[in-house]
């Protein structure tokens, strides 16, 4: 009887060969380029690229992150939708039990939205 583990490892051998080939190909292309290209460093070449214009100011600047709350809430309800879709296709099979379960699930998430709303994160400051 073939050992199932060896079987498994053999199947992974393909993955290993592909990974090795991929790495070798990228390495070869970059390596050939490195060998062939001329090397003339100039200070201008090290300036950050900003649409062809000389960059102004410092690179470390603060940016508005107030949008993140909306992103978080979006992820929350996106995940909720991911759960609801498969559930909806099979609702008849789940019956009343499934309906109540999903109602509880949505209700708890809605309470989270109530919390966010009362906390004032839905207001654009």
């Amino acid at each position, binding site marked *: 009887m073939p050992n199932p583990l060896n079987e498994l490892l053999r199947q992974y051998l393909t993955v290993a060969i592909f990974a090795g080939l991929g790495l070798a190909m990228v390495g070869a292309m970059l390596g050939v380029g490195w060998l062939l290209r001329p090397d003339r460093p100039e200070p201008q070449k090290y300036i950050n690229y900003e649409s062809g214009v000389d960059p102004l100011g410092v690179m470390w600047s603060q940016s508005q992150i107030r949008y993140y709350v909306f992103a978080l809430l979006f992820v929350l309800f996106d995940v909720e939708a991911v759960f609801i879709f498969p559930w909806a296709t099979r609702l008849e099979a789940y*019956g009343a039990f499934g309906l109540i379960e999903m109602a509880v699930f949505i209700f*708890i998430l809605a309470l989270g939205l*109530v919390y966010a709303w009362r906390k004032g994160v839905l207001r654009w400051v």
Partner: protein
Amino acid sequence: MIGVLARLAQDTGDGILVPAEPIQAGVTQIATPEIQWVALLPHLILVVGGILLLTIASLFRHRVPRWAYTIYTVAVAAGAIIAALPLWVRVQDAERGPFSAIAGALGVDGFSIFITVIICAGVILTALLADGYLKREGIDGPELFVLLLLAASGGTIMASANDLIVLFLGLEILSISVYVMAAMHARRFTSLEAGMKYFILGAFSSAFFLYGIALVYGASGSTNMIRINQYLASPTGVVLSENGLLLGGFALLLVGFGFKVAAVPFHAWAPDVYQGAPTPVTAFMASAVKAGGFAAMLRVFVLTFGTFSGDWQPVVFALAVLSLLVGSVLAIVQTNVKRMLAYSSIAHAGFILVGVEVATEQGTAAALFYLAAYTFMVVGSFAVITVVGRKGDGHHELSDYRGLARRQPVLAFVFTILLLAQAGVPFTAGFFAKFYVISAAVDAENYSLAIIAMVSAVIAAFLYLRIMISMYMSTDSEAVTGEPDRVPVPLAAGIALFVACVVTVVIGFVPGPITDLANDAVPFLVQVG
């Protein structure tokens, strides 16, 4: 038209479930498991209590006084304990005994109820402690209490999970709540850092844990511990001992548990996180989180993988020895009291690991007794640290404790008792905790582990003495230059301290009741009837 669509749907290929025909009225109903509400009640009380508090507090923001949150949290945790008591009676009843609920997802046995009560006790003490802390630090908000209740529900689910997936759910509920709690003091940079560190390392450990579950599932064909256990005990299962999948699964699960209970070499996060997190949260992490982690570890390894104990015992042996030695030695060289107790909690984890390693019922009972005793000792100790930390939660150096005995003799005396208990001095709970664990190791003829545990207890005793000495000794020059003011002890924190101290001493004199309970709290895997 419909026929074409139906054929198309069928052709979409292998494995994807697409209805080949329009859904008709006669759909085969999926059998839903019977829900044993009574068995779920302790968990439900904690979850619903937490969500209800969140809703009430967000609807009536600024109109509810802070002490109401504390009383509410204490009441909910006490309610969960009360709901667990009838279950205990039922489980101990010889005719009915332990049982599995919800199609074998949750196991209700003395073990899970014992841990549930420990975790709820941890919640009560932490909530009392957090009351004065939040007021002092000017943090408004019920969020800490909400997260406390939710984390507790995660811990209780971990303790009673009979399925690795349910166990993982409990672990995540517990962990994610505690990540946020660690970062609760948002104005302190160290608190944010602690939350971040705990989150990143915890996420790693969860990934390890999940991969371990996947490998064990691959080897045994089930995530249900009852079935895994039966399969491993069957003749086909025994062959698996040479299977890398199963052993790899053991290793990865051990890594996951090692992170959660802060066992060396997976302890690196513990000192930083314990130091940075708000002190009441640290108390919770050291007590309830550890209890949940060890409960799951005992259930998974000692019980489910019990037939393979020869494979995992050497690894747990190494974890226990390293935790004992590294924890107690590194604790000595610290100057920050919070870090000291963090390392000492690593050493305590080593002691509990001794109880896990012996893999006997006696070892499990010893580990349970240890967890019960340690919860009160460690929450009490961190209660003193909370109070002495003053506003800003920053006075945790050893020098901040100098002369405490002269300024506040009662506080210093209570801290002394709790530290002596942690050191394992007779007539305290800590003595019996260490005694039972070591005697379990001796009875399992594991003498080397017993000796290392005793040596480490001696090393660790030095650390507790160091804190005591700095409390009782103070140079005369300090008395002249003026010393810091007395620290106020809030009423709720005082109650928590009193309870922790009394329980520690009472168990130290009369360990019998808790020992009997721990002996009755044997975990079971019951086939779903």
